[in-house]
């Protein structure tokens, strides 16, 4: 299990899964504390019209146009939610519900109307991703990690996801102070001159970048699950933000590794033939972790209640 086959077939998907999970969990911590956890849900629904639109414009199924299309769709969705919230005086949850279901419906309709029979583009792909197929054919063993020629054969999702993760980490580190201040005490942050509105919008944009980069490799389910479950579980473990983020990264990594291994090898251990969906299993594992934290977490109750 740890030999050449592992490096070629399992290492890249596991790494991509970890990178995607952590990249979503980091902004997820702040979204959770700001009670905007469902923004991730909304963004990952509108990815579908984005990629279909990109396909209709460019005519090819390629990574970059799709990611740009998905990003544009995410921004349009955020703009529509804000517009409906302000113009109509609608509470944010309902405004979100109106926008993401409508855009998703538009995406499905576009997909049905356009001629996508020749290319691999469907709703299931956007939802589940295709983690299992991201294999590294040039990986002959652990020594291939030092071989420049073999490294060039890595699935392109791996460096893309790694870059996204680095970007998210860098932005979180750079804007740590304004981000934490405006998350916990908006009024105080404003009195210190922190541009609260810009920080909030920036956070949503970073979340959108992480979501769009991740969906391509792992699908929307993991994106939604990783935005919410690891930070929520971490929230039940501690009262300190730094510690919470550390826990959430741990939980995200754990979900990705355990989920992938259980999906790939679990059925074999039980005597079945085929593997099950890795994306679904990773989401399930993150849910189990959250359930455990909700039952045993040291800081699971609200302050003031026993």
């Amino acid at each position: 299990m740890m030999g050449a086959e592992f490096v070629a077939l399992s290492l890249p998907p596991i790494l991509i899964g970890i990178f995607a999970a952590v990249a979503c969990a980091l902004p997820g911590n702040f979204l959770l504390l700001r009670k905007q956890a469902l923004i991730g849900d909304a963004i990952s629904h509108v990815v579908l019209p984005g990629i279909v639109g990109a396909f209709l414009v460019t005519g090819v199924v390629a990574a970059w146009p799709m990611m740009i299309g998905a990003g544009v769709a995410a921004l349009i969705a955020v703009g529509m939610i804000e517009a409906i919230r302000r113009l109509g005086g609608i509470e944010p949850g309902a405004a979100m519900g109106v926008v993401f279901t409508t855009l998703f419906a538009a995406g499905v309709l576009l997909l049905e109307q356009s001629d996508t029979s020749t290319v691999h583009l469907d709703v299931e792909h956007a939802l589940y991703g295709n983690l299992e197929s991201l294999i590294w054919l040039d990986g002959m063993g652990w020594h291939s990690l030092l071989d420049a020629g073999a490294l060039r054969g890595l699935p392109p999702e791996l460096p893309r996801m790694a870059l996204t993760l680095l970007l998210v980490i860098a932005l979180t580190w750079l804007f740590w102070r304004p981000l934490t201040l405006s998350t916990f005490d908006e009024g105080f942050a404003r009195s210190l001159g922190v541009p609260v509105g810009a920080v909030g919008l920036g956070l949503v944009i970073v979340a959108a970048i992480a979501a769009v980069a991740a969906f391509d490799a792992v699908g929307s389910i993991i994106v939604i699950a990783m935005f919410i479950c690891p930070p929520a579980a971490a929230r039940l473990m501690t009262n300190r933000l730094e510690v919470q983020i550390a826990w959430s990264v741990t939980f995200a990594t754990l979900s990705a590794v355990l989920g992938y291994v259980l999906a790939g090898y679990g059925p074999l251990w039980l005597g079945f033939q085929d593997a099950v969906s890795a994306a679904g299993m990773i989401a399930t594992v993150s849910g189990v972790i959250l359930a455990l934290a909700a039952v045993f977490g040291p800081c699971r109750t609200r302050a003031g209640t026993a």
Partner: protein
Amino acid sequence: MLLEALTLQLGYNATLVTIGAALLGLAAGATGTFLFLGKRALVSDAISHATLPGVALAFMAMVALGGDGRALPGLLLGSAISSAVGLLCVSALTNRTRLSEDAAIGAVLSVFFGLGVVLLTVIQSMSSGRQAGLESFLLGSTAGMLWTDALVIALGGALVLALVALLRRPMTMVAFDPEFAAGAGMNVRRIELAMMGLALAITVVGLKIVGLILIVALLIIPAVAARFWSERVDHVVLLAGGIGGVSGYVGAAISATAPGLPTGPIVVLVAFGLFALSLVLAPGRGVLAAILRHRRFQARVHVRQGLLALAQGQPIYEPLTLRLMRGRGLIRADGVATKAGRAQAARALLDERRWQLLRSDPAHEEAAAHYDGLTPLESVLTPDQLRALDRGLRPGDVQAGALQ
């Protein structure tokens, strides 16, 4: 073609789907209103995604028992059970831990959906060669709708509607003010569960037509659209039911006119169209009404300021003020006041002086709170009070007022 579809002349299947979708929309709109008014619209998102593992497990159970596995009542029962479990998880996470409801919703919807996907892949490998077709529950599929399916939807929708009618008063109270409802001796928790249970029933019934991802739209969009038109709960519920029903009917009819127009998405888009119309056109809360209100207010402020300037002999430069005053015949094209303009200007100045006097006198504190620079004092004080107030004015002011 569309006309034939709207008058139910496109064949048996199209008619079944259209009537089914209309009933579903009606029931969903009315039920969703209470979720929306209680600011819990997105709970329906968790409910709907949590149906997937139930559908898959029910399929497996029915196959294991030697059945076909695709019998709709069995699948719906499974989906109802698993979404009820999901609902209880949301409620447990919200009540027993420090997590807020939106985090609980997101966690439940993603985890249950993920589990459902895992189970779907298990089914795929289990019945290799025979497509279970359970993916159609994601987006709905009306192509092979049977008479019994339509019957299940119609009966379910009617039952939900009857329960909504029965429970509308307690649900309204709980949605608006849970504390008051508890104080009035209601079992808030049970009523909330009933509210969620009705949404759950709608979700389960709607799986076949619009699918689990889009059923949320039918619960949320009609209610949000209806809210623009009325401030009364009963009216909003009726309107939401109407908007939902029309969306279902028209959407299903449109989708029957051509291939490649899936029912669920079209129904949702029609509902969104009605929402957009409401957002723009509704009187009172609509965008157009708000713009008109703003313009009227702006005009009043400009004219008032222009009149005060006229009365005090100051020149007016502001282009909008000039245009408005010319349009009302208060000044001539060259900017000189007309007779009507002079009269109104004097009245405006008198009003302003009276207000000044009133606001400097602590005895009139209550009336002074009405000051906004636009309300004429005549509408605040009685004639006697006005006359008493006028005694404090300087002679010049009264004379100016007496000119008119």
